């Protein structure tokens, strides 16, 4: 039993958000680009990860994770949170998203190999066939799909009752109070940004950014078939947003955030009295007081000058550098206006993980703290 407890302690330790999130990001890029990123030793280290795209290896891995997941239900704290009826679909979502992301990447790599050897992609091999009639070929598939889902939903509904808690009581705030599960990624952003940015601006930009994807992506390749090689950057950006910044944050918000919005490991008891020190510090204090050993200037603009410079450089200078060097091809293809809008949205998206890292490593509260002007970043 001691062995099991040790494993649980390790998992709890790893689940602390700085470690969990950092590990996830590293794992994300290592699995997406095995043996391709970083210095030579890192490439050598991650190269074997390409094996994950072999169906048998993936099946073993999925099976192992599934087994671990089901064995975890023996832990009372895990059962209490993950076993909640409303959390069952979220737990299922982990495996569904995992599977389908893996599957689409695997299909893409399959097609890439076919194209390298001069053959057409899988979808093209079949497209040579004459077209088939919607009745019966498609309509029957749809019908079958409907019947299977009806059966599945009925079985699910028979075995799992829809929960109902105590009647609504405006005088009794539950601890923790959480938004509906699919908005927990947004609620998570509230920790790092002001409400008007995290709750209004960023959700609006997410919708806008998603809608703008077809107009940013000028790559004519990879239209209508799975591929990875022809769309590496596009796929990496989208999956980073979808898997890491959306689904991952929902998991953190659902399973790891407990009373008082404190973090808890999956096998940890949700203790409402857990004390976490609040030692956040503003960037202005860090620069003026700690580094320059000077009192804070009273003029807000002077006080926040360092933060304003950093944020200004991030949003104004960095896009220019991106266009000139790292994303030169995209810049030339898209033209300046489109490229700079895209760069702004991309940098906004990346500001979230950057802000999270700064909070965890330096306890940084805000880079620019100007409550006078509702401007905290």
């Amino acid at each position, binding site marked *: 039993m001691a062995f099991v407890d040790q494993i649980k302690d390790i998992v709890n330790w790893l689940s602390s958000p700085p470690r969990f999130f950092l590990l996830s990001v590293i794992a994300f890029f290592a699995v997406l680009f095995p043996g391709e990123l970083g210095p030579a030793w890192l490439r050598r280290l991650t190269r074997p990860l390409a094996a994950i795209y072999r169906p048998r290896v993936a099946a073993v891995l999925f099976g192992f994770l599934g087994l671990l997941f089901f064995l975890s239900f023996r832990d009372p704290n895990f059962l209490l949170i993950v076993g909640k009826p409303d959390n069952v*679909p979220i737990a*299922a*979502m982990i495996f569904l*998203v995992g599977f389908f992301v893996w599957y689409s990447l695997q299909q*893409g790599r399959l097609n890439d190999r076919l194209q390298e050897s001069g053959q057409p992609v899988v*979808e093209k*091999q*079949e*497209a040579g*066939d004459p077209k*088939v*009639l*919607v*009745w*019966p*070929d498609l309509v029957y*598939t749809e019908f079958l*799909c409907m019947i299977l*889902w*009806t059966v599945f*939903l*009925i079985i*699910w*509904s028979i075995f799992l*009752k*829809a*929960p*109902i808690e*105590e*009647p*609504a*009581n*405006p005088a*009794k*705030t*539950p601890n923790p*109070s*959480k938004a*509906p599960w699919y908005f927990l990624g947004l609620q998570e952003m509230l920790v790092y940004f*002001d*409400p*008007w940015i995290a*709750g*209004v601006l960023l*959700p609006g930009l997410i*919708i806008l950014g998603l*809608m703008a*994807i*077809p107009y940013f992506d000028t790559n*004519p390749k*990879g*239209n*209508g*078939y*799975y591929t990875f090689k022809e769309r590496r950057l596009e*796929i990496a950006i*989208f999956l980073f947003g*979808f898997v890491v910044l959306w689904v991952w944050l929902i998991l953190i918000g659902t399973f790891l955030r407990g009373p008082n919005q404190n973090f808890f490991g999956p096998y940890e008891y949700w203790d409402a009295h857990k004390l976490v020190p609040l030692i956040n510090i503003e960037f202005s204090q860090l620069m003026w007081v700690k580094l320059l050993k000077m009192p804070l200037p009273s003029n807000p603009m002077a006080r926040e000058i360092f933060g304003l410079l950093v944020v200004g450089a991030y949003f104004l200078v960095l896009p220019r550098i991106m266009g000139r060097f790292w994303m030169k091809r995209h810049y030339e293809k898209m033209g300046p206006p489109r490229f700079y809008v895209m760069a702004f949205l991309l940098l906004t998206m990346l500001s979230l993980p950057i802000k999270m890292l700064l909070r965890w490593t330096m306890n940084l509260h805000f880079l620019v703290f100007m409550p006078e*002007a509702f*401007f905290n970043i």
Partner: protein
Amino acid sequence: MPVLKRLWEYTRATQIWNSIFRHGPMDTARNRGLAVLTNVFLHLHPVKVRKSGIRLRFTWCMGGITFFLFLVETATGLLLMFYYHPTVEYAYVDIVDLREQVPLGIMRELHRWGAHAMVITVWLHMLRVFMTGSYKPPREFNWNVGVLLLVLTLLLSFTGYLLPWDQLAMWAVTVGSNMARATPLVGHEGPGAPLLKLGDITLVHAGNDARFALLGGRFVGAGALLRFYVLHCVGIPVVAMVLMAVHFWRVRKDGGISGPV
């Protein structure tokens, strides 16, 4: 069964049958095509499709499943509406009654689990469309319609979240709608709102800001329950249905399910 066969042939020859189905027996390609063309629901499909396009391993049928779940939600939601009053006095009791008084009742379960599943399938549908590059020309606009439908799915789920009127419902919606307070200019705690003044009178306050409009009150109460109910059962579904019609029709008009050129 010769009797059944004769009955079937007799039915097919009647004026009633022929007035409904304007095509002959389904044994020729022409009649199969007509079956799709002359049916208002089926004609959202093209007559012919690429074989690779309808492979389950290409589409995962995720869009179809999402639409089917929308139909499940409509059907079960309609039945739930018969037994549910959107008032503070009755809402919670009605839900408890559905649980306690209906033997083998699963309508609420179907509705709730179907809704959770729909949120997940709509995300997976987006993932599939992205990974196959299906938003590329000429399908840019349909991707936009799809994003709006995704947002509407989340809003449908969010408005439905309040209706059981239990602690989970009330506080999840309280947390969710608190964001509206911080909307620039139109939320009373948002940037710019304190600037909107006429002399000493603040124009935007807790009694008329964006959150008030959403909740029909200063907090999640009777007004919010009614508003969310109407939006959940009528407002959002109607908009979603219009957009869905556009979405499916555009799939067909933009050249069917995507495939390599």
